[in-house]
């Protein structure tokens, strides 16, 4: 059974460690905030200029001066800090953010990621995605294993323009989890319940090795 959106977020949440400063991308990564494990305290960064992001506000309590990187209204929490966008990307580029969890359109077996542009379609811009994949110490990707036509999105080489080269560390798809050795290759470490190695092989264009300690994704 492929993992649901919520299960993908639950699996990604297992990458959180107490004391981490974390940047969550738009979409499924945003849901990770709902599954922070007990006993783990993390601080969420919003790259427009905030550490300590709280939940969405109650209706009627929205503040136009308080938004996240997706331009949604949010709230502050005790301990929240605000700063400029240059300080914010200084902490990203400087390697101070422990973990980024992002979506992707394609990844490659060398750890490249493409998630900002489809040629011949209107380009909206990369926002902070290139800075995040280049600067954050550990980059976890959450994505669908295949596209709507059933074709692999885990590729030998990305076909779309790259967001970053050899910069991701873990790929969580609805079928399985790959560990990435940047610039080297992929290792299959977990399978979604009911999914076989053969099924992953059939649906993956990239080459990968299979861990001796292959386990089932715990969600």
């Amino acid at each position, binding site marked *: 059974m492929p993992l649901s959106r919520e299960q993908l977020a639950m699996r990604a949440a297992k990458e959180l460690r107490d004391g981490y400063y974390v940047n969550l991308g738009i979409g499924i990564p945003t849901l990770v905030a709902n599954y922070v494990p007990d006993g783990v305290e993390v601080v969420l960064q919003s790259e427009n200029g905030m550490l300590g992001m709280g939940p969405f506000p109650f209706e009627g309590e929205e503040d136009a001066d308080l938004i996240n990187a997706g*331009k949604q209204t949010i709230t502050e929490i005790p301990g929240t800090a605000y700063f400029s966008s240059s300080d914010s990307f200084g902490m990203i580029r400087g390697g101070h953010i422990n973990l980024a969890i992002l979506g992707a359109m394609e990844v490659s077996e060398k750890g490249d990621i493409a998630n900002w542009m489809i040629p011949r379609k209107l380009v909206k811009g990369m926002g902070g995605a290139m*800075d995040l994949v280049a600067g954050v110490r550990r980059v976890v990707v959450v994505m669908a294993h295949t596209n709507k036509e059933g074709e692999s999105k885990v590729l030998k080489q990305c076909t779309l323009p790259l967001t970053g080269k050899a910069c991701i560390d873990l790929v969580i798809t609805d079928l399985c989890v790959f560990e990435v050795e940047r610039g080297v290759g992929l290792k299959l470490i977990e399978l979604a319940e009911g999914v076989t190695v053969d099924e992953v092989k059939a649906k993956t264009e990239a080459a990968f090795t299979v861990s001796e300690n292959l386990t089932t994704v715990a969600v």
Partner: protein
Amino acid sequence: MNKVYNDAKSALDGLLFDGMTIMSGGFGLCGIPENLIVAVRDSGVKDITVISNNCGVDDFGMGLLLQTKQIKKMVSSYVGENEEFERQYLSGELELEFNPQGTLAERIRAGGAGIPAFFVRTGFGTLIAEGKETREFNGEMYVMESGLFADLAVVKAQKGDRWGNLHFNKTARNFNPMMATAAKYTVAEVEELVEIGGLQGDEIHTPSIFVDRLIKGPKYEKRIERRTTRPRT
């Protein structure tokens, strides 16, 4: 010393010319100098290069200057959902230069700090690095980016005094402090004008040295782009 002008029009008097480069603060619609943008539009100045993280929406913020075709080129990181932008870009009327958001922020910071160029890992091996100098430092590859400096910066703060000291509110700070440092002239608009001493030294995010003129905005719409709430349980 009194840098306070009566209104946006007079605060921009003598600073605008065709073909100029204008930096405009804000992220999305958050912290944008909404009154100064309207005054730039009303001045009729054209062929502007605008450096701004985003380009507003069709009928608010920088989108207003698109409607009147006063913008020749945008330097941005994300242009979002803006139909007029899309139309002008696809028809070739509007030039566009995308910068990664952090690179854009740092280019502005560097420009204001007298740093002509610097190296970042961001974008190495991507389209963004094409045509740019790259260099290896400590075994990693970096891309050279240049500092940005504009003819005019328009910024928005929550509070300011007649010297031009500024205090920003929450995430409305974003690009405003760097832009205030990176232009020949900086014009600020504030929601609240306070007496000298009304801002404690530690509350001042942008020291007055960077601000040439300021106004108290007559009104603020402070539109929200994506109102997102949670249910009361």
